[in-house]
Every structure is written in structure tokens, then in C-alpha cells.
């Protein structure tokens, strides 16, 4: 089971629950499982979040794999200036 943590405002949509243990094997599955538990999250996950899997931040990717012992954070999306 991957250990999943919601960072920032997202926990407000889950009644304060920020930590989950989920059997997701990809970002796509993770989003589906989180939304099933807390439907209010769905729109926000679609609207743009970044996902950190074992320390590596991924943006805008559904297919990235999640391992059985992965540490996952769901973060606000990061853009940039330059």
C-alpha cells in the first residue's frame, strides 16, 4: 500500500484527513481511488496538482507508476517564470 499525503488546502476537501494508505499502482488509479473516497477532490485533482513519488515531483502525468511501498505527496502545481 502506498502512503499518500495531501499537501496544502486539499485536506480541507476531505474533512481534514490528509494521510491515506492506498493500493494504487499509478497516478491515474490514485486519483480515482482518492475521488471515490472524497468526491469533492475530483475536480481539484483534475484542475492541476503535482504528484511526488518517492521524492521525485511529477507534473501533469497520469501513467507514472506507484510502487507498493511508495511515499506519495499530492501537491499544488508548480509553474515558473524564468
Amino acid at each position, binding site marked *: 500500500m502506498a502512503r499518500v499525503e495531501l499537501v496544502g488546502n486539499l485536506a480541507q476537501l476531505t474533512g481534514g484527513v490528509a494521510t491515506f494508505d492506498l493500493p494504487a499502482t499509478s497516478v491515474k488509479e490514485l486519483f480515482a481511488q482518492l475521488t471515490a473516497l472524497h468526491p469533492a477532490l475530483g475536480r481539484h485533482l483534475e484542475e492541476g496538482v503535482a504528484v511526488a513519488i518517492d*521524492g521525485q*515531483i511529477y*507534473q*501533469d*502525468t497520469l501513467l507514472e507508476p506507484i510502487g507498493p511501498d511508495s511515499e506519495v*505527496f499530492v501537491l499544488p502545481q508548480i509553474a*515558473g*517564470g*524564468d
Partner: protein
Amino acid sequence: MGETNGHSQANGQHYVGTRQIRPDGADKVTGRARFGADYNLAGQLIGRVLRSPHPHARIVSIDTSKAEALPGVKAVITRQDFADQPSEFIPAGEMMMNYKDVVRNVMAREKALYEGHAVAAVAATSTAIARRALKLIDVKYEVLPHVIDVVEAMRPDAPLLHDDLFTVGVEPKPEKPSNIAKRVEIKQGDVAAGFKKADLIIEREFKTAPVHQGYIEPHAALATVSEDGSTELWTTTQGHFIVRAHCARLLGLDIGKVRVTATEIGGGFGGKTVVYLEPLAIALSKKAKRPVKMVMSREEVFKASGPTSGATVRVKMGATKDGKFVAAFAELKYQAGAFQGSPVQPGTMCAYAPYDIENVHVIGYDVVSNRPKVAAYRAPGAPISEYAVESVVDEIAKKLGLDPIELRMMNAAHEGTKAAYGPKFGPIGLEETLNSIKKTEHWNTPLRKWQGRGVASGFWFNIGGETSVSLTVNEDGTISLMAGTPDIGGLRASLASVAADELGVSYDKVRPIIGDTGSLGFNFLTGGSRSAFSGSMAIVEAAKQIKAELCARACKLWEAKPDQVEWKDGAVRPLGALAEKVKPMTIADFAKVSGKTGGPIGGVGRINAQGAGPSFGTHLVDLEVDPETGRTTILRYTVAQDAGRALHPAYVEGQFQGGAVQGIGWALNEEYVYGTDGKLQNAGFLDYRMPVASDVPMIDAILVEVGNPKHPYGVRGVGETPIVPPLGAIANAMENATGIRFTELPMSPPKVLKALKEKGLNKV
């Protein structure tokens, strides 16, 4: 990482990591290169924008009839020419845009929300006629009270910009609208408990003013719309695929029918990642049935394009007497300008990122006010929050009697540290940059009276993103490299080096260009310090395809099996016994027979680049204050930053130096000055004072390379981090020089003099 990956020329030479002449160089030093305003089309009209003189007003009516009747005027547009957009966040490229706000920023609808807000636009046969036409447009305004300052705008009785803006991120949901668009928060551990463990607690409030990205080239766009609805657009932009997406959405066009060319760009720094003139030029061209060219004046750039937030930041940190940070709190209030979307979120995430602190709590507010909508400015949000944090860190060092570098080393984030925003860091170079600074002669040089030294660290996450490049082998063996991220600082030189090494050809045989939106798959914009990182990654993919294809062709030509050939050092080489029968074939050899062996040779890299590694930096500055005038002279400046792997060291150094000097300007002089009437008083380069050559010394650049394991060459983005540490470093140096902690930026001469006078220090 840090090796060449075994990719080099047959003679062992490699280009990555060397200082090649940039391929677009000759055009840039002769004036031949074409920037946005250098493009012209036969029969073009000149477009100009009518802008609100009021910072906040209801637009009661707009009468364009007299303007339309003026001979030479071919089209006039107003809010009526843009369909309204619903309030929802929609993906545009890789960003989420609320087009209800975008359409209103491009052309005001119900209200003018800042001085300079576009209210109408005309296209005419000459600039003079266009200007005259603007004067003939009759706009009736109902002037409303305005608010600029972020703290003022947060008050419950402040003038309200949007009656449908209800603060997101607070529970329970507010019943009344306000100017507070959003509240964001990150939390780790328990700060209350942490502060109880602290031997020293420091709490300070800081204020920064809005500053502009300051690109020397104003916005410019040239549009032509055909009778069949297809649109061609030339624009100076950091992201032509994003421009295409915005214009298609705003004007109801098929994306495939809009072809955008990114001209050479004269600076962006984040400010050219949005649209201002482009939708207007297209709408005018459609109406006038002729090409329309629009260029902003410098005054328009200041008044109508997005600077970054001004902000109020409160920081509270607790440390043990040995210097261990045990608790860190911050509250950030950032101005978003007329529409929501300040960079307060990244500001909260970056605030304490350089440090390993168990208990962190950062709150941020995104607040609208009557000034132009903010646009990204190099590491958006981070310079502000890290200025505040680095100032307090410096104070902690002073009060505990600890060396400021040692204090940072003691608390530095390193591989495995959990960032306050969640994930653990992979390999990072913060400690290396601190050590590099410590070893410099600069750090060890004695100072005199009224001179001060300051140090600060900072970072930016960096991003990857969707990237498409193509590599084509021409009949003579030269390589055409087409990338899709506008080159704002020497990118083509870096990419050409990578392509040359990957394919084993000479650097001067690679011709890089930036393709238009019709020539490549989607490319996210140049920003987030991504273009060299992602572009080089995509080139590696494209080169892989070419090498595989050539190995396959060699097998057919030599009647060999795949395990009898390999690509190495610029050629397909026969292995084992086969080597006695046939000679290796280079790209040029294959090019000569490409038609006969299957057709044109090429490869595409189409990726969503992941694995961007953060870049940490530490800056060291010496300065001298003149107590009689309050003027500050930067004496010496050193930047140490982790580039992972510098594809082209000179252009990486250039990023360090340029960002540092922007930071110097931000810290010492730059600010938007508003009158009580809400109008900008310094909308020009004379009074919006950016650093000139005589204001700064040489900027020493130390290239640290802690390879990024997720990139084939170890590259980290470098463009944004350099602007993050300077504000804190300079504020710390000022304290060291004067004994005064400046908590308001800029530390301009009048402010410094006033502070010195208050302490009776204004004598030599």
C-alpha cells in the same frame, strides 16, 4: 552523472560543457535578428489600445462611432467582440486558466480594474491615425474607490473588485465576497510545540513593493486572418503554443487553424507567458481583413503588463542556542493585481525549503487589488518569502553569535531531507554552494567602516513538461534541429552541443531553429527553468531513433545481424569478424544514400519531461553605504549555484549573473510608485530605476555540479534560482554595514537616509 555518457566525436571531442559560439550569434550582433517589432507584412495596419485612466471604474458605455468614421480607421473592437467565458479552470497547455479572468484582462468588460486596463482597440493605416482614433472613442466611466496595498485590500470595508470572489481555502465558506481570493497553507509537525523548545524566537514583518520583469523589448504582435478563418501570428513570447491555446479559446478558433511563430524575444523573465496584444491583433485583423501590427509603448508595458506582487510577510522562527531551527512560521499576503493568481502558493512552499526543520507552518493569502494582473517573474513568489526568511536567519546568527554560513550548514536541507511541502529531496547541492562560498577569497576579505557583508541561500523547484523536438539529417550530413521553446538566453547553443555529441557530428554542422506551432508537437512554454533540461532530454530521444534506424540500415547494407553492429562515437561500427569486411559509416555516409536505403533520416523526441531537479544557490555580497546620501554601492558579488551539469558554462554563468543583478535592482531601487489617485507615477525607465553597468561590479559565478540522476546528462534547470537569494543577501549586508535591519524593500537612498537619520548615523 557528469560524464559525457560515452557520446562524443570519433576523435573523442565533445561539445557539451564547452563554450561554443551560439548559432544565432552572427544575426544578433549585426542587428539582423528579427524581434517582435521587426516583422512587417505588406498592407498591414497599425493597432493601438485605448486604456482606462481610472484604477477602478464601472464601464457604463463605449461609443466608437466617431472613431470608426475617421478616414484610415479599418476596425475598432471592444468587449463586444469577445465572447464571455464562464468561470472555470480549464487546461491550456499545462496550466489551468480561468478564462473568465483572461478575457476580462485582455479587454475590460463590466469594469476597468486598473489604470491601463484595455477598454478598446483600433486598427488604422498609420500610427498617427490610430492615436487620433483612440481620442474619438467616448467611454463613460463611473469612477469607483480603488485599493492598491495588499493589507488595505484585505480589510472588510475595502473597495470590492469582484462581487463573485469568495475566498477559497477557508472553512466555513465566507458568505460575503471579498478581495481575498484564496488562502493556502502548508504544515509539518507542530510549530507551537516547536516554539516551546526554542531558546531564541525572532518575529519580524516585512514589506515588498511590486516590481516589473523589466524586459527591454516591449510586447509586440502581428496577426493576419484569412477569409477561411486561418490565422497567422508572429509574437514575442515565451510560449507560442500557449499563445495559440489562449487565442483559440478566446476567439473561438480551432487550434489547428492558428499558426504562431515565436519571434526572437528581447527578454521575458516570466512576463511574456501570457497574452495581451495577440487576441486584440487577431480580432482586429479579422474585422479589417488586413494584417494588424501592435507594439506596446514602454509606458503601456509598465501600466498594462503584469509585474510581480507587492507583499507583506510575517516570519517567526525559533532556534536552540546551538543554532538548530526548531520551529518556523510565516504568513504571506501577496497582491495578485486585478484578477486572482499571485504566486503566493510557491511562495509558501519555497519559504523554508532550504532548511531541514521539523515544525513548519506557512499560510498565504492571494489578494486582488487595482493594479495590473501579476505575471510570473523568475521564480515567482520565492524571492519575496525567502527575503523575509533569510533576513530572520541572519538575525538568529547574529544573536546567537554564530557564523551565518555555519548556521545555514547546520540546518541545510540535503538528500533525504523532507521538504516542508512534502516529498524528500533527492541529491541536491545546497551544502556544496555554502562550502564554495566559504572557500572564496571574497568571504575572507576584511571590510571597512560603512561596508557590510551578507549571505543568503535560495532555491527553485524547476519543472519539465511537454516537449517536442525534431532532428533531421540533411543530404549532406548536416543536422537540422528544430526545438519548440523560444530561446531567451542562449538555448540554441546548448541544444546544438547536445545534438552534436549525440550524433557524433561537428557542432557547426548542427543548425538549430525554433519551429512554429505548425511544425512541431506541443511544447510547453520557456519557463520554470525547463527549456535546456527538457529540450536536451527530447534530443536524446530523437537521436536514439536516428541511431536505431541507422543501425537497422547498416544491417541491411552489410547483411549483418543486429548484434554485429553498434553505434559508437559518431558512426555505426561493425563488430567482430564483420569489421574486416566493411568500414564504419557516419551520419554523413548514410545521408549520401538515404533515399536508396529507405528514405529521409530523422527522429522526433516527444516527451513530457519529468525528473526536474531543484537548483540551490548561495549568494555573497559586499556593499558600502554612503551615510550622507543613503546610496548603496555593491562592491563585490559572488554566486554559487548547483547546475547539475552545465551544458554551456558561459550561458549558465549568464543566468547566475543576470538574476543576481535583477535581485540587486529589486533590493535597492525598483518599485512601483502609486499616487493616492491609484495611478502609476514611474511608468518609464528613468524613474523605474533598474541597475545599469555603473551600478554593479563583476559578478563572480561558481558553477557547482551535483548531477541530477534523472537526466541523461545530469542537467538541472538554472534560470530562476539566481533571483531568489539576492534580496536577503543584500538586506543582510545592509544590516552588517549600518546596524539597521531593513524590513521594507527597496532599500532606496531616501529610505536608507531616513533610517540613518533616525538613529543619528547619517555622518561619515
